[in-house]
């Protein structure tokens, strides 16, 4: 106890030095806490943006469809799959889609497009197409000849609301061309270049009709009651719907780039933490040695009056821990305040595209209890490691040599 008291009071002997070291370490810790919170917020936002815009948290296709996009390769036993989805307690919403490549003609231009046949009502619950309408309106039950196109495509085709366009595509099995005239019902802006420039949405029934799909479909987009389930590899969902030549994939499999970015972000976080902890260790090492050299004679006295070498080392280590504790407390407070403020007001990265995902909402740093336990504990650990060398130095001091300096 006396050693702790000694160490604690010693760190306040040179208040300016302790203050500067404490601020440096504290700011380091606070920035680490904030970075972690920001990364969690950013990742959550990216996942929400990626899955909420159109993808969904999971998708069901026929095996191999995603590799070739062959229109013949439709979901097997669709009725049974839908029946299961309707009774699946984990599933919150789902939307059936048909999709094909086609050509769009307007009086001014022609462009290749991917057109999706969607169920307007169900689609509202799994994607944000309805919210992205900038002109005109979303698909309604009675407007079966309406199309939704992106802002980029509208510009290319030089069309506006109510203008007429023709979609041409090859039919399933026969390969015969099929054409259908539509009116532009709405123009959307999803802030995703590929979708805004080359994707068209129409009623599912209409798409089925021009592709000649019958009652088949190519894709079912799914959302779960618990969004976190989409990343759970052990969820029975994946096995249940990956049968009869169908496959069910989560967003991690559907967006490999994003998955890689997330893995990388975890790694980056550790690199940042390591650099930060290294700096903290150097600050502590410097502070301890400066303090130790200033008090060499005092250490000599402590040795002379019977303090064992191990206890001398303990004093230095306790000083390192005390400094880390004070700095850690300061860092926690600053980190908490800064992160809290930004978690309320958010950070605006909207419109910025990263890893093929465009941020569509403000990023709110996410505070977790771990940030306030794990990082300060790491600081303590690094302080302890940084204190080892000065502690060893103090333990090995030859009392006569240091005492001779001023006796």
């Amino acid at each position, binding site marked *: *106890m*006396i050693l702790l*008291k*000694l160490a604690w*009071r*010693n760190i*306040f*002997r040179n208040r300016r030095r302790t203050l500067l070291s404490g601020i440096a370490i504290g700011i380091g810790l606070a920035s680490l806490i904030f970075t972690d919170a920001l990364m969690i917020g950013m990742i959550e936002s990216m996942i929400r943006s990626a899955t909420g815009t159109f993808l969904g948290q999971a998708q069901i296709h026929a095996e191999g469809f995603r590799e070739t996009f062959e229109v013949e390769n439709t979901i097997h036993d669709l009725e049974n799959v839908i029946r299961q989805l309707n009774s699946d307690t984990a599933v919150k919403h789902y939307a059936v889609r048909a999709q094909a490549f086609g050509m769009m003609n307007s009086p001014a231009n022609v462009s290749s497009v991917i057109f999706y046949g969607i169920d307007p009502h169900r689609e509202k619950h799994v994607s944000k197409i309805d919210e992205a309408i900038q002109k005109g309106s979303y698909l309604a039950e009675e407007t079966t000849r309406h199309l939704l196109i992106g802002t980029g495509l509208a510009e290319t085709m030089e069309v506006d609301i109510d203008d007429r366009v023709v979609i041409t595509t090859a039919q399933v099995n026969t390969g015969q061309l099929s054409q259908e005239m539509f009116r532009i019902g709405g123009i959307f802006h999803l802030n995703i270049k590929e979708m805004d420039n080359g994707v068209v949405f129409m009623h599912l029934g209409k798409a089925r009709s021009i592709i000649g799909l019958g009652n088949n479909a190519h894709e079912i987009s799914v959302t779960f009651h618990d969004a976190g389930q989409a990343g759970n590899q052990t969820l029975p969902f994946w096995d249940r719907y990956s049968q009869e030549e169908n496959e069910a994939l989560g967003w991690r499999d559907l967006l490999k780039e994003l998955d890689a970015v997330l893995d990388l972000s975890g790694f980056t976080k550790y690199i940042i933490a390591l650099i930060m902890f290294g700096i903290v260790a150097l600050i502590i090492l410097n502070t301890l040695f400066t303090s130790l050299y200033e008090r060499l*004679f*005092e250490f000599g*006295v*402590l*040795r*002379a*009056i*019977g*303090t*064992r*070498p*191990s*206890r001398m080392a303990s004093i230095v280590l306790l000083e390192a821990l005390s400094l880390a504790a004070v700095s850690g407390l300061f860092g926690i407070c600053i980190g908490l305040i800064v992160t809290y403020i930004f978690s309320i007001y958010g950070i605006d990265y909207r419109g910025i595209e990263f890893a093929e995902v465009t941020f569509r909402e403000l990023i709110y740093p996410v505070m977790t209890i771990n940030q306030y336990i794990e990082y300060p504990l790491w600081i303590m650990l690094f302080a302890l490691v940084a204190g080892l060398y000065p502690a060893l130095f103090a333990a090995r001091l*030859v*009392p*006569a*040599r240091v*005492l*001779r300096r*001023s*006796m």
Partner: protein
Amino acid sequence: MQNKNPKLIEAIDVSKQYRSGEITVDALNSVSLIIKRGEFTAIAGPSGSGKTTLLYMISGLDIPTSGTVVLDGKPASTMSSRELSDFRRDHIGFIFQSYNLIPVLTVRENIEYIMLLQGVTERERRVRVSEILEEVSLGGMENRLPTQLSGGQQQRVAVARAMVSKPDIILADEPTANLDSHTGESLIEMMRQLNERRGMTFVFSTHETMIMERAKRLVLLKDGRIEKDEKRQ
């Protein structure tokens, strides 16, 4: 030292050389000395005569270049760093020239420090600190920090710190050097009374004639050698 060996410390043909750059300095040269229980010994000599070095040798703070120092019948050279620390903690009290109290600890904590290392109970510590402070006339000052005391008072605390663990011997390196003559004289008088009343063994270095005269044994050092070793009354 529980066996009450009359020879507390013995230095046998001890020499110590220091290297100062290219030059080798003979700080001590074949010094032999026996310190017995109950002595009140002054090690005197001019500056650079080897007084401090001899004190370091006989306390196990330094290792001789040649010769042997025997502490409690055991050669210091055979003791580990930890054993030497424990020996000093339990058997030797130190008084330094510049008081050298721990500035961040109060008077009570400075005095208690060694007892804490020894594992003395809190109750016992309180009693002993109060007693020793009365003895050195510092009663009521236990909660002051060293910086709040005069030089003389700090040196009294240093004496109290050295005595409180009831060591077999107190080694003092020029304890009056930083005190005015009156304070220095009263400190030596206090040490002498402790020697007479309690039979506590004192060895102190000095170059002041007035202080030498109060010693019961005078060891005179010159150029690292004992020039004179005489008993006095």
